[in-house]
């Protein structure tokens, strides 16, 4: 570890992993935590629990705001374990001087998103701190969900499994980036910020056997694929051309030198299913987003690694994103 924590330690990529394993896992070590899933299975696998803090800047962006994000973020972590989000807590740290109207707008947006999930906030806390102690407003939410489909796990991938993405990728990262001060881009781009439980419910109702499921937040699709390849010790072969990326996101990547695969999403997930379920799963996904697609398959060629295959027959490894991508994206 470096002597001081840098912004790169919060990137959802390699440095972030180092911070978590070398400091937090080291001291908090227990069997549940070490599974390192989106949320923790508790009470013999009947319930899941997850927590997340939200520091996004700007607070309001195309397609959402910090409130919507705070509900989606935690509920999605629960949904990714095949669970229905039920009970949430909500802690808010507010900077002195923050406009009450904006606070109410944010809380209203949280309420709306809770309704989408069918969840309720059952406990909360507020702190107000002097100017400069936080930037405007930070929110933490913790949630408990009831498992509807069990057995979903990052370490369950086997040769021949298909991987699908639920929609076009990279929107949230690209939206926040273009909204930031200092980067003056005019764009109509909207964040993908959305609650995913309804879509997961649809998959469960369609009796799709979900092998693995994860929303591609910080670190983007690259991070999820790499985590899966490592956790299951398999090779994931991605067809680069099959990955759906919206034109404006591609444009922003071109200009700023990013890879859409590394950009954060807040309402986009990867789904691993058996080959037999692939077509049906795609049909369910496409009910919500036409852009969803089968993007990869699991093999044994390079165990623990992700390969990106081009349409002209070359291959390369796709690694975890490193360095400071963009702080305070969620």
């Amino acid at each position, binding site marked *: 570890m*470096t002597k*001081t*924590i*840098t*912004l*790169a330690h919060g990137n959802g990529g*390699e*440095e972030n992993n180092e911070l978590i394993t070398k400091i937090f896992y080291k001291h908090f070590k227990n069997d549940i935590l070490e599974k390192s899933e989106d949320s923790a299975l508790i009470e013999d696998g009947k319930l899941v629990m997850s927590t997340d803090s939200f520091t996004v800047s700007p607070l309001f962006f195309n397609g959402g705001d910090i409130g919507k994000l705070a509900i989606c973020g935690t509920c999605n972590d629960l949904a990714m374990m095949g669970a229905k989000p039920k009970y949430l807590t909500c802690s808010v740290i507010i900077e002195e001087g923050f406009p009450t109207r904006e606070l109410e707008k944010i809380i209203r947006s949280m309420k709306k998103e809770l309704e989408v999930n069918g969840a309720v906030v059952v406990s909360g806390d507020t702190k107000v701190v002097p100017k400069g102690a936080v930037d405007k407003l930070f929110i933490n939410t913790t949630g408990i969900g009831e498992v509807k489909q069990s057995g979903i796990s990052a370490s369950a991938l086997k040769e021949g499994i298909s991987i699908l993405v639920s929609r076009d990728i990279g929107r949230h990262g690209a939206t926040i980036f273009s909204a930031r001060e*200092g*980067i003056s881009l005019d764009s109509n781009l909207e964040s993908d910020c959305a609650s995913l439980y309804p879509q997961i419910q649809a998959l469960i109702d369609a009796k799709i056997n979900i092998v693995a499921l994860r929303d591609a937040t910080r670190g983007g699709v690259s991070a999820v694929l790499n985590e899966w390849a490592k956790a299951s010790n398999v090779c994931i072969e991605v067809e680069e*051309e099959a990955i759906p990326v919206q*034109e404006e996101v*591609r*444009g922003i990547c*071109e*200009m*700023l*030198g990013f890879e859409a695969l590394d950009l954060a999403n807040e309402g986009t997930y990867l789904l691993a299913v058996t080959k037999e379920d692939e077509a049906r799963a795609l049909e369910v996904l496409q009910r919500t987003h036409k852009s969803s697609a089968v993007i990869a398959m699991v093999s044994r060629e*390079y165990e623990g690694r992700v*390969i990106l295959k*081009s*349409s*002209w*027959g*070359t*291959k*390369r*490894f796709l*690694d975890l994103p*490193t*360095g*400071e991508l963009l702080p305070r994206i969620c």
Partner: protein
Amino acid sequence: MSDLELKNLYDDFRDGKTIKAYAKIINENAKKLKKPINIMEVCGGHTHTIMKYGLPQLLPNNINFIHGPGCPVCIMPKERIDHAYVLAMQEDVILVTLGDMIKVPGSNGSLQDARAKGADVRFVYSPMECLKIASENPTKKVVFFAIGFETTTPMTAVLVEQVIKQKVPNILFHINHVTVPEVMVELIDSRDEHVDSYNNRIDAFLGPSHVSVIAGSKIYEKFPKEYGRPVVVTGFEPVDMMQGISMIVEQFVDERCELEIQYKRVVSREGNLKAQALIDRYFEKVSLFRWRGLGNVPNSGLKLRDEFSEYNAEIVYKDVLPIAEIEDHKLCICGDILRGMAKPQECTIFGTACKPTSPIGSCMVSSEGACSAYYKYGNIL
């Protein structure tokens, strides 16, 4: 008329069928080569394209790449990175620079580390952002740490012009702009003690197209004429590069040695004369610029002209800036890599002690450096 969409600028130039078609032509023609050829892609952007798109996987064994020194972040010697760090740590300074500079470690740490210690470091995509930062922070000095080749120099020159015109009192410049042809000469012609052994390794150059958009293709005319090295000015998309490589191979098959332009859609012989004039108005050559990994290269760097010294951070802050030259780690072989003497994998610390997250040598520090590109993309060959 419909608007030109951004995708029109790259879609066709990444077309799989076209790339395959060029691969076929190159492979056919390469059979006629009398000896293997080593092509230096001078620019880090080219290195990045080669590795990202896996181009070596499509080429025959008798065509090799030597990855050149054209990454402005990689070639920055440590003492100048220390300048950036020291400037950033000044109470009254906001240090502004371009992207990758932020993670390059100097002897005290990187700008990222400086920021973690409380320094105000900002990265921008356009130097013009400095004007806004300066007006929002009138009690601070905004130091623009300028890096880059001919491509970014005009943007810095425009900022200098605006600072002077608008009489902005709180913007200073730390200039680290360097030029491409001078380092190419150094690589093929120098009789420096390091260099004897690599004199004949570079058979041809792929010249970076964006440099010639500004400086014209004329800057490369001497290479075929005086040094016997063909140059093809080439774009950055994979189709561009495959075509550029194909043009070089054809020159060797036809026993020609010429300057050619692949990137005809933008590059002319003269380049952008307005930009050249602007650069000339504010900058002059320094007799020696020290390149990380290569040492002193004559006439390869720029500085603010003396009449603009009041804007020169190196002069304004001369009392706090370190002057000693700092050598790279003993095990680092970046110098050999930049000269085409070695490939990144031949380095004993490649991928072990030296990684993109903790770079030791210059070629690992930026995504455009050869080692970094090999680390990220190059392990399936």
